[in-house]
């Protein structure tokens, strides 16, 4: 009877058992690892108050299954490993392994045939079923316990704080979506209102749109606040660039001056209300017309003259104010540069003072005032000539016309400047609107669902001072610091001349004073004992030296 089928059958059965055992072991170990990992993840979520996402369980199950299959495929028993195992398990002394190798090498005769026959004979009483396929019991129990615990943790609901946080995130997301839309709408609206080309250039709506489009829709409240604050800062910077406070102040002062006269009141109102474009038109309407008679021209010029003089007075006033302040600053600057050995001199400070006192607008107003003054004088001169001789000579007329042209030129320049100011002012106002919208949206984001505190009567006082407690001075309650080199000194340092002198204090008093000092030092608790003994020895040695002679 051929022994080969019997041996192969035995090996096949053992191999099946081994594969089954391998599957059971891999499954149990995989379950243990996956359950352990899942438990750790679940604990991490639960400790933080969150509910464990179901996706983790699904992912773990899939990963565990894949790992188990892969592990089983890799750990499946080969024919050789089965033979090795069977030899070891049934104490066959390499019988099966040798037979397997001999068969693979096609050795079938002589001693090999005897070996095969002997192998089959030895296998006959053996039971392959004796190979246990059961997984390690304790590991299996542990794995199941861990898995059960991990699954149980999955049913735990999130805490109230986490729910609030999630609600806040959702609210933040919705708010950011709404705010971004509102800002975009506001920009569109401002853009539509901006018809002037210069204003559009100043406003630069494309850049503003880029900035707004860069805003993200986020669930993170802090991140949202950060980005809106950043946008607001950028808008403020752009707005700062367009600000013309000095000129506005000057025109405000001019408005106060112009208020004093009835004829210039409308102009004053426009300056005060920062309607600079309209003010420019008003000034243009004051322009004298050369075709009219001299008296009419004078009458017409009187209004412009009044206005220009009032405005020039405002410029002078401001110059006077800023001149005094800049002078003091210049003095400080000079002293500091002198200390540091700097070379900048009075020319720098003088130019600074000039620039601050009115600037381009002030210069334009003063030019207008002087031109108007000159025109007025030339008209007066021409009028006097007309009254005296009944006619005006050509020289006087020419002078009047030249002055008139100069006034027109200065008036145009001032009107142009005012118009430019008006445009800047409008752009600035629009940016201010955007800034305001940004700050409002930040305020809206900061309002948490629990904003406003607890309801009436729901408050709690966690701190109550039942009795008055005295403040104990531990020596650290105040910290006094002086400025070195400043302030009056409480002590004086006296130096004596070299040589001998006579003491004004008796020896006994001096000794008592020293003793008192030593005693007070020695009785201090905060001085280490070693230092105390050192001081004692020092004074004792002094006395000994004194007593020796």
């Amino acid at each position, binding site marked *: 009877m051929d022994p080969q089928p019997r041996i192969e059958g035995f090996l096949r059965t053992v191999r099946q058992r081994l594969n089954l055992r391998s599957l059971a072991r891999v499954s149990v170990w995989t379950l243990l690892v996956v359950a352990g990992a899942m438990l750790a993840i679940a604990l991490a979520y639960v400790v933080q108050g969150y509910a464990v996402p179901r996706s983790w369980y699904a992912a773990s199950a899939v990963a565990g299954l894949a790992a188990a299959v892969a592990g089983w495929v890799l750990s499946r028993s080969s024919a050789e490993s089965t033979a090795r195992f069977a030899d070891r398990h049934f104490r066959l002394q390499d019988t099966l392994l*040798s037979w397997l*190798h001999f068969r693979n090498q096609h050795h079938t005769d002589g*001693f090999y045939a005897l070996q095969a026959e002997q192998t089959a004979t030895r296998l006959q009483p053996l039971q392959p079923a004796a190979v246990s396929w059961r997984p390690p019991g304790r590991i299996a129990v542990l794995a199941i316990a861990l898995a059960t615990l991990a699954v149980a943790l999955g049913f735990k609901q999130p805490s109230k704080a986490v729910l609030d946080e999630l609600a806040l995130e959702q609210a933040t997301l919705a708010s950011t979506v709404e705010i971004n839309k509102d800002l975009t709408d506001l920009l569109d609206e401002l853009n539509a209102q901006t018809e002037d080309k210069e204003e559009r250039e100043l406003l630069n709506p494309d850049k503003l749109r880029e900035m707004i489009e860069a805003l993200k829709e986020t669930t993170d409240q802090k991140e949202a606040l950060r980005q809106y604050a950043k946008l607001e800062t950028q808008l403020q910077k752009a707005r700062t660039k367009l600000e013309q406070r000095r000129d506005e102040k000057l025109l405000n002062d001019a408005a106060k001056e112009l208020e004093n006269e009835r004829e210039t009141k409308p102009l004053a109102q426009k300056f005060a209300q920062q309607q600079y474009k309209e003010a420019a038109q008003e000034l243009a309407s004051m322009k004298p017309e050369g075709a009219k008679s001299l008296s009419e021209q004078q009458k017409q010029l009187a209004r412009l003259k009044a206005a220009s003089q009032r405005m020039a007075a405002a410029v002078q006033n401001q110059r006077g104010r800023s001149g005094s302040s800049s002078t003091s600053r210049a003095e400080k600057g000079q002293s500091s540069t002198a200390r540091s050995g700097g070379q900048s001199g009075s020319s720098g400070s003088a130019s600074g003072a000039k620039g601050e006192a009115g600037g381009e607008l002030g210069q334009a107003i003063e030019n207008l005032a002087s031109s108007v003054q000159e025109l007025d004088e030339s008209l007066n001169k021409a009028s006097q000539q007309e009254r005296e001789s009944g006619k005006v000579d050509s020289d006087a007329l020419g002078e009047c016309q030249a002055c008139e042209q100069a006034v027109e030129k200065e008036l145009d320049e001032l009107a142009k400047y005012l118009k430019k100011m008006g445009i800047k002012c409008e752009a600035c106002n629009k940016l201010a609107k955007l800034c305001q919208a940004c700050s409002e949206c930040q305020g809206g984001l900061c309002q948490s669902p629990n904003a406003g505190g607890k309801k009436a009567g729901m408050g709690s006082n966690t701190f109550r001072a039942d009795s008055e407690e005295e403040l104990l001075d531990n020596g650290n309650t105040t910290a006094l610091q002086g400025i070195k080199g400043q302030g009056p000194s409480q002590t004086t340092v006296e130096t004596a001349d070299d040589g001998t002198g006579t003491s004004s204090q008796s020896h006994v008093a001096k000794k008592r004073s020293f003793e008192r000092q030593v005693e007070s030092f020695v009785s201090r608790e905060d001085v280490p004992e070693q230092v105390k003994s050192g001081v004692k020895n020092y004074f004792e040695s002094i006395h000994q030296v004194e007593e020796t002679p």
Partner: protein
Amino acid sequence: MTLLADAAKQSTEQFIRTFDAIREEVGKFIVGQQQLVEDVLMAVVSGGHVLLEGVPGLGKTALVHTISQALDLKFQRIQFTPDLLPADIVGTQVLMDREGRKTLEFQPGPVFCNILLADEINRATPKTQSALLETMQERSVTVAGKTHPIGTPFFVLATQNPIEQDGTFPLPEAQLDRFFFKLLVKMPSHAEFAKILDRTGGNAHPKISAVANGEEILHMGRTLREVPIDGAVQDYLIHIVRATHPDNDDAPADVKRLVRHGASPRGAQAMLAASRARALLAGRYHVSRDDVAAVAIPALRHRIILSFEGEADGIRTDDVLRKVIEQLK
């Protein structure tokens, strides 16, 4: 079953039968020492030489003498002493008068036999000990430029006292390597002592008769060389031998520390032959790792040279080999 298988089976049965017969015959006189007797007989049927070591009076010489009686082979005994010369062992040329002509003729020494008992081999000087080198390996003797073959089977069964005893010379490594097994003769147990006294104390002595001749011994050697060995088992054998070398990466830390030189390939050959004999005696037709591990110590213990540190620590090569086997299990 094929003819080859039948022949193999008959050869195996004859091997076991003859082996058991010799063992039984030896057992008539030698009390106990079953493992020792089996190891000596395994070396004999494998064609190897045996070095028996033990204190005087343990029956080493008696064992060899009994084996020689159980085998129908020419037996010679040389008592090694410090004044023994090589010519006293291998033979010498003698001036002979042949029909009035003086001629030099080779006078064979006691080495020309089948079983040579080299009693107390370590009492001779190294020069005399070395006279056996060619004989043991080549099974021939060269005198005056002429080589004289020794008949087969030929095996040397040497005895020696422990090296610590006075008046002994350690055997050269080259000669030690030529011994198939080095076997340690141990003190008999109490019951064995009683039996020894019973057998040797009276006037009657057991009669030992020859149960095997030279041809049968040679046939047994041929039979065992046919026993198959699996590649994995052979790898295991090679791993053991290689692991005794301190410069081998797989060698245990103790080998690296305590061993100066490891076992030679000749040791692996001895292990293989002995493993096959052991497998056949166990009724198996293949060599197992157990066979290899069992014969490793007697086959390798005299082939390993300890380092100075090993010698100083009083380490025995048997302990080193046990660690090697344990590691490679």
